[in-house]
């Protein structure tokens, strides 16, 4: 079974600061980590491999500095960890990124593609399902448990707000996973030793047969109109006083009416 896990490098949110002027994340000073949800996707990929046999390939799209993160997945026990990196890909939004990842998955070959449920920087949760759309395969999002898996199909539990959906799908399939699905393993000693010597292969847009007109900042439809910090105005509380509750209620009523909050 060919298992592909798509992961993303994100700012270390435990250590991030926000530029008060622009309202954007100060990415440079934060350091980077693997998107926390993606750790669960890597772990689930390894568990499926342990059960079904096959290989686990991790793919990330980003600059060369993402190599260290890829090495940590080698430490956890994945077979290959690929860096999809090309100047033409820079500035891609979720639309363009999903296209590129889909092409990379095609090159790698896949029966199951795993994603974290969303990345903690953009929080869009779009890349998993969009990649599945480009590949024309079903996607199962918010997976909290893989109940059964065979060479032909998979049954999973999806964590919904109002309960659990149990869904069966044919393979190939894309899954996005929530953190309830497992507990990611630590890097093993053997894994670390392999990671030390491992140099992640780099795939360019040409390597994955990608169309330059589909990727990069020019071909990304998302536009950030404005971003700002939500500010809560503090210190404007008004204490309503009166001899008893009924009198206070009267004052409150007329104040709220005066403000147009009630009619």
């Amino acid at each position, binding site marked *: 079974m060919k298992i592909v896990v798509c992961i993303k490098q994100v700012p270390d949110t435990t250590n991030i600061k926000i530029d008060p002027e622009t309202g954007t994340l100060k990415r440079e000073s934060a350091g980077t980590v693997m998107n926390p949800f993606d750790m669960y996707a890597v772990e689930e990929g390894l568990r499926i491999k342990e059960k079904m046999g096959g290989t686990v390939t991790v793919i990330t799209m980003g600059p060369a500095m993402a190599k260290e993160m890829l090495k940590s997945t080698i430490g956890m026990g994945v077979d290959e960890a690929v860096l999809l990196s090309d100047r033409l890909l820079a500035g891609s939004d979720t639309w363009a990124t999903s296209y590129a990842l889909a092409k990379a998955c095609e090159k790698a070959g896949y029966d199951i593609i795993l994603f974290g449920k969303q990345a903690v920087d953009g929080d869009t949760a779009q890349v998993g399902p969009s990649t599945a759309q480009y590949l024309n395969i079903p996607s199962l999002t918010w997976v909290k448990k893989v109940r059964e898996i065979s060479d032909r199909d998979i049954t999973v539990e999806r964590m919904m707000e109002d309960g659990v959906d149990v869904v069966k799908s044919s393979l190939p399939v894309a899954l996005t996973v929530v953190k309830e699905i497992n507990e990611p393993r630590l890097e093993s000693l*053997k894994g670390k030793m392999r990671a030390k010597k491992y140099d992640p292969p780099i795939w360019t847009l040409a390597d994955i047969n990608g169309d330059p007109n589909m990727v990069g900042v020019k071909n990304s439809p998302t536009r950030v109109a404005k971003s700002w910090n939500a500010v809560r105005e503090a210190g404007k509380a008004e204490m309503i006083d009166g001899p008893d509750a009924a009198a206070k209620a009267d004052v409150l009523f007329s104040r709220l009416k005066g403000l147009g909050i009630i009619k």
Partner: protein
Amino acid sequence: MNYFLSEEEEMIVETSRELALKKIKPVREHYDAEGIFPWDIVKEMSDAGLMGLYIPQEYGGMAPEGKRGIMSMVLCVEELSKICGGISLAMAASALGTFPMLIGGTDAQKKKYLPDIASGKKLAAFGLTEANAGSDAGSMRTTAVKKGDKYILNGTKQWITNGSMAETYTVFAMTDKSKGTRGCSCFIVEKGTPGFSFGKKENKMGIRASATTELIFQDCEVPAENLMGGKEGLGFIHAVGTLNMSRPGVASQALGIAAGALDEAVAYTRQREQFGTKISSFQAVQHMLANMAVEVEAARGLVYNVARMVDAGAADFAKESAMAKYYASEVAMRTTTNAVQIFGGYGYMKEYPVEKMMRDAKITQIYEGTSQIQLNEIAAKLIKESAKKK
């Protein structure tokens, strides 16, 4: 201090430290209070590849090429023991139970048993001590009588670490009482062998996450092929060799406990305020910390050097390994006691980790040879060496 660890050794430290902080630290207090054997952590250690650090690669372990892997083991045990000296023992005691096989086992015995121990699938335990045979191991009463292609074992072993949890036991018994220590032999006994049962689990002062039980043999039939090395009378040699080799391990457990207590003490002094200032600004406290740090570092130097000496293939390291075990365990007791002192009333409470560290430290002065036995060993060697010079 820089000990010039190799890249691989650094990775062992890193892997062990991460496991200790992420997996052991959250459960140590609970496991200590309830006396729970840490099966989930053993699984983590196995998955991380730490269970076979001292086992040759040809038998599925990770000992560096041409070395015994004692330094690897020492580094791992130290890191785990900084966080919990009881949980770390599941691995260290398995090593103790495995050494007789590494020292005296036949190739067939090694091939049969070592791979499962190296992978962590099975734990090992060492069965030497009896109620009336502690430091004086020669007075053991457990017997093994040959009958056809079997040995019949009778007797009771006491205070066996990993007892009832391990699958593979290296058990010492007298095959010929008339020959004294030369009539002692070692056997590999598998859990589940008819006639082999376990006594009660001991309720201990410290290392409470570690399982300690009696091993009871009542007409227990062990296949003759499980006689260690295939020859009778070698048991005492295997036992002494094992203890020499395992002492750096106990020493590293003691070192880890001491280093962990020092870390806690330093951190606490920088946070606790009295008389309007941090207690780290008091010279009385500073001198305590400095003394602790010097002793911990001296113990580390001794332990690492003995481990490297063993790994390099030294033939006789009994004196040095006794020195390391003696010194590190004394330092562990002093350092943890002082850590409790620095914490004051809080240190005496179970909510703070140093109370447990002090209880855990005590055993390192007692088992695998008491401090007094180590001194005997060191002195005997000193006198012998001096006599040889003339």
